[in-house]
């Protein structure tokens, strides 16, 4: 994985609470056996009409979405299924961070494993950011993961919480599977002292 670097971007507002993973990417696109091509399917049923034509009133179809890297969404973003296709679709579209007041647990984990930063802010800052993009759609916010802060256009720093291990992994570009593979000895020792409750290859 590439190290996660500081960046600045416009915000793409999606003021809806509880945006679930079925909206982020509908289940019919989960028949794929690869990770490719999911960016086109991001928010498909909100983005395209029944004939598959882009809806001009949906924000991802507007010129301002092109090149934007931060999504600003309502409460409890990413609730629903465990599909990692959701962060794959978001990152393939170009997003590198989502800002909300809260994230669903599995989505947050999946996002962090794909260098998509789930940024939790207070209700006040959340409302302020929506007001900011309303006033100035081109306004840019900086994401500084090393400093664990958002930097607003007026220069204010807004700190956000993040699991310290995930932060380290993102900043250093650490591959978590590779990291756990280094713990083989401890895993083998655990297995030796804990007999398996079931063996799926044998009936008891």
């Amino acid at each position, binding site marked *: 994985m590439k190290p996660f670097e500081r960046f600045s971007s416009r915000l793409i507002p999606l003021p809806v609470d509880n945006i679930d993973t079925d909206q982020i990417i509908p289940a019919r696109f989960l028949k794929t056996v690869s990770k490719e091509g999911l960016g086109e399917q991001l928010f498909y049923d909100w983005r395209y009409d029944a004939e598959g034509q882009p809806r001009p009133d949906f924000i991802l179809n507007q010129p301002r979405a092109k090149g934007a890297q931060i999504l600003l969404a309502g409460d409890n973003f990413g609730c629903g299924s465990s599909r990692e296709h959701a962060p794959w679709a978001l990152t393939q579209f170009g997003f590198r961070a989502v800002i909300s007041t809260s994230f669903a647990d599995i989505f947050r984990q999946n996002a962090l*494993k794909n260098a998509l930063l789930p940024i939790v802010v207070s209700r006040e800052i959340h409302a302020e950011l929506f007001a900011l993009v309303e006033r100035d759609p081109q306004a840019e916010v900086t994401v500084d993961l090393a400093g664990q802060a958002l930097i607003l256009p007026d220069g204010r720093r807004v700190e956000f919480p993040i699991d310290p291990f995930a932060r380290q992994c993102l900043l250093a570009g650490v591959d978590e599977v590779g990291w756990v593979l280094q713990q083989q000895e401890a895993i083998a020792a655990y297995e030796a002292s804990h007999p398996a409750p079931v063996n799926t290859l044998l009936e008891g």
Partner: protein
Amino acid sequence: MPRTIIEKIFDAHVVKEIPGAPALLYIDLHLIHEVTSPQAFDGLRRRGLRVRRPDRTLATADHNVPTLAPRVPIADPVSARQVSQLEAHCQQFGIPCYSLGSERQGIVHVIGPELGLTQPGMTIVCGDSHTATHGALGALAFGIGTSEVEMVLATQCLLQARPRTCRINVGGRLRPGVSAKDVILALIAKIGTGGGTGCVFEYTGSAIRALSMEERMTVCNMSIEAGARAGLVAPDDTTFQYLAGRPFAPKGRAWDEALDRWRRLPTDEGATYDRTVELDADALEPMITFGTSPEMGIPITAAVPEPAAARDALERASLEKALRYMALEPGKPLLGHPIDVVFLGSCTNGRLVDLRQAARLLKGRRIHPRVRMLVVPGSMQVKREAEAEGLDEIFRAAGAEWRQPGCSMCIGMNGDQLEPGQYCVSTSNRNFEGRQGKGGRTLLASPLTAAASALAGAVADPRMYL
């Protein structure tokens, strides 16, 4: 120090605590299915790794399989490819696979318990958010993404932060016509879909103790709809009776030893939780959802809420958006609202107990001519047992379709879908926009409410049919 069952199971599976990192947690059982595993196997192959413990891994095909016979070959080439790739991966890596054609095929969260693979005190994961179902037997079970599936295939471990503990105490006794599904829908309506974020639930109280194993699975299953990755019920005699004699359950002396271990699992007296939520079973009515989030639920006799009563602008906008999608008017009751489809099935309500409850109402009656009713057993075993009791005949005679096992219209991947604009009373777990088919409108409810609504051709109160 007194500990909750959640802490006991977590502690017993910590392989190593490494400063600055989440705990390295050992996984006793890894369940996989066709949809969230292909990219994980790709990753494994790219790294040149084997599956560390195929003997702790089991696969089935459920999300994407046809429910009409003959099921093989699968007509949709994209679905066929995904299922055949699962079979090929399992063969290559030595993982047992109960795919189409197996007498044990079924929804992953139905077959784990019924085969006795799910046992108290275990850690269980699956690339599916409804893995909490297995918590009904006193296991710590949760859904994971595909990167984590790859991690578990490679190492049999996960990096897991210690969860916060939350006790959901359901006191009192459920009244006739009110079931496990209503308990969990009422909880979600009360605390919201984000209410349990970061938590593992332990369900306690007299109303939970009185539930059968299958009903406890219904409750645990939808923990994720309240934001909790896992939910569990401490094991008791109901659990042990359910497990005894199942294919993978311990036998003989091993059974006695297991019982000793399992009896030590329940939460110690004096243990504290980070949070407690109380629910009064006596006050519960049959529940139904009206919107596009599982938290948008009401007692079946109540009116659809007014968006004007929302706590802030964003919540009001979300409610208005949901009611627009559902084409429902605020302030009006749902009772009597015409419906088009009834879906009975899923990992939430596709077990024998669920089918029996619905069949009890449908026996000797005909569903409304406007309604199409799909009955999809959760597994081959559920199907066999239901047929042995003649439930399939009751459903057919009532005018419903009796199908083959799979996730079916809960997720609509296999072609079992709603048409745009249709209303469906569904025993599944999610009413998200388009979940059951693009433009489809889902009303989540219990098997009893679903059966009553099928008879009425409209949203109906099951208590009128008991």
